[in-house]
């Protein structure tokens, strides 16, 4: 841990961020560093494991592997932090269960002992947005704002597991109409536009995407239609799986539901730290916003150029 930083976290990467949307990883690392928060690696961390998938197959496996992941952060002595709602769901729910059930914790530790690890449970797992809003606070973020985007209309998508189950989340039980992500977005001068069923799920979670892609895409279709209806320029979110579903899923919606959606969708999907970073005046290369490769079939699947165009005057 370095004394140059005010905050220290153990960056729990999960799967989708590092392995499919590395621009999100780059932007979280850069923005947190910029804000005075140190992001330490959690060497050898695995899949969280995904709360609607692997927990749905076998709860004990889910709990033990989650406890192992948290124990890596404990070894370093920092709170684990994730930029993914799914990982947040797992780490937080597992932590909550183990905090409240002593017998369960004992059992989990018997398994972990086999690989020479222990789970203590003294460090609360956090979400990137939770750190921004509750640890650092809006006032701290405000100090860093260099540019504002008054022309930008944003559809904010929360996703599910950042707010629910609300009894295991830090938002004072609010799950119907949370505001924290909108408040962060509004720091950038952009307008967070209201849209129908704003808090609805993207459709990817709970193993649905792997089960029946068309069903997941139909959730997404409904969201996208509601977002287009209010003329939002971009979607801001705080979860790589929602991000994938809204980005790659947008292509799928355009294919599966061409006959009912009218014009194909092409709404740029941007992660919250990418937006914040530009408002802070940071180099867009550090935020994963500039394409530096000739690869095909990689993310983002929907061009973010319309977004870069709107903010081009502020780009370095």
């Amino acid at each position, binding site marked *: 841990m370095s004394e140059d930083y005010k905050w220290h976290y153990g960056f729990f990467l999960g*799967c989708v961020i590092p*392995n499919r949307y590395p621009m999100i990883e780059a932007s979280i690392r850069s923005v947190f560093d910029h804000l005075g928060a140190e992001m330490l690696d959690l060497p050898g961390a695995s899949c969280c494991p995904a709360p609607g998938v692997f927990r*749905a197959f076998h709860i*004990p496996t889910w709990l033990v592997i989650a406890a*192992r992941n948290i124990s890596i952060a404990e070894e370093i002595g920092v709170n684990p932090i994730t930029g993914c709602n799914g990982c947040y769901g797992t780490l937080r729910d597992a932590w909550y269960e183990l905090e409240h059930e002593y017998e369960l914790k004992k059992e989990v530790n018997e398994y972990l002992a086999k690989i020479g690890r222990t789970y203590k449970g003294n460090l609360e797992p956090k979400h990137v947005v939770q750190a921004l809003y509750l640890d650092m606070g809006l006032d701290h973020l405000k100090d860093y704002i260099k540019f504002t985007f008054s022309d930008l209309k944003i559809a904010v998508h929360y996703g*599910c597991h950042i707010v629910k*189950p609300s009894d295991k989340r830090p938002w004072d039980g609010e799950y119907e109409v949370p505001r924290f992500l909108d408040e962060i977005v509004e720091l950038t001068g952009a307008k967070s536009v209201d849209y129908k069923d704003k808090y609805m799920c993207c459709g990817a979670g*709970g193993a649905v995407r792997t089960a029946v892609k068309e069903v997941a895409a139909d959730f997404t279709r409904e969201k996208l239609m509601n977002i287009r209806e209010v003329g939002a320029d971009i979607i801001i979110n705080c979860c790589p799986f929602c991000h994938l579903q809204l980005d790659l899923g947008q292509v799928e919606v355009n294919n599966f539901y061409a006959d009912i959606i009218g014009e194909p969708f092409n709404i740029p999907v941007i992660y919250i730290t990418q937006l914040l970073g530009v408002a802070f005046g940071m180099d867009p290369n550090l935020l994963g916003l500039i394409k*530096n490769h000739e690869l095909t079939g990689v993310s983002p699947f929907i061009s973010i150029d319309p977004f870069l165009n709107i903010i081009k005057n502020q780009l370095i």
Partner: protein
Amino acid sequence: MSENVNKYIKRKVYKKTSSRIAQKFVDAGLQEIRACINCGTCTGSCPSGRRTAYRTRSAIRRALTGDESVLKDIDIWLCSTCYYCYERCPRNIPVTDMIIKLRNIAVEEGYILDSHFVLANNIFYATGHGVPATGENNKKWRDLRESYGLPPLPPTVHSYPEAVKECQELMKAVGFKKLMDNAAKLKEERAKAEKKDKEE
């Protein structure tokens, strides 16, 4: 849960089902759903039920009456775990968690989709990631990482082979491997029986 209550649930609620499945429902803590008043708030809140035949209330009802069919059809796998039903149930039933428990029992009975099986057995167990970046097919993702100034593989299990072994050891100890092998066996037996049925 006292011995008496357990008996009551099995006698009154799971009367008509095989005692093996009934016992599984009880063991999984599904007795909480006895508080269900069939109000339909869960179904009314469900974004999945708006576009599929999945009805949360009906799944809960079927579990409550020990109806094994709830384990077999795809319905419970169409829940996106959005937790609206969990939040809004007026009887405080942790509905989403109950669906997850039903899925656990379904997998135990060999009712797991092929795509989920591959994800669990061939990807998660083998690599420690649910969405990996290793292997020839995934080279583009490693290249993409590098294009953003990141190392080709993240500092996760991907960079620490002994960590994959740790995870596998845990998964073996806690019964995941056995569960998957058993599910594969049951699936195969069922497929064979179905094929035979068709031929006859």
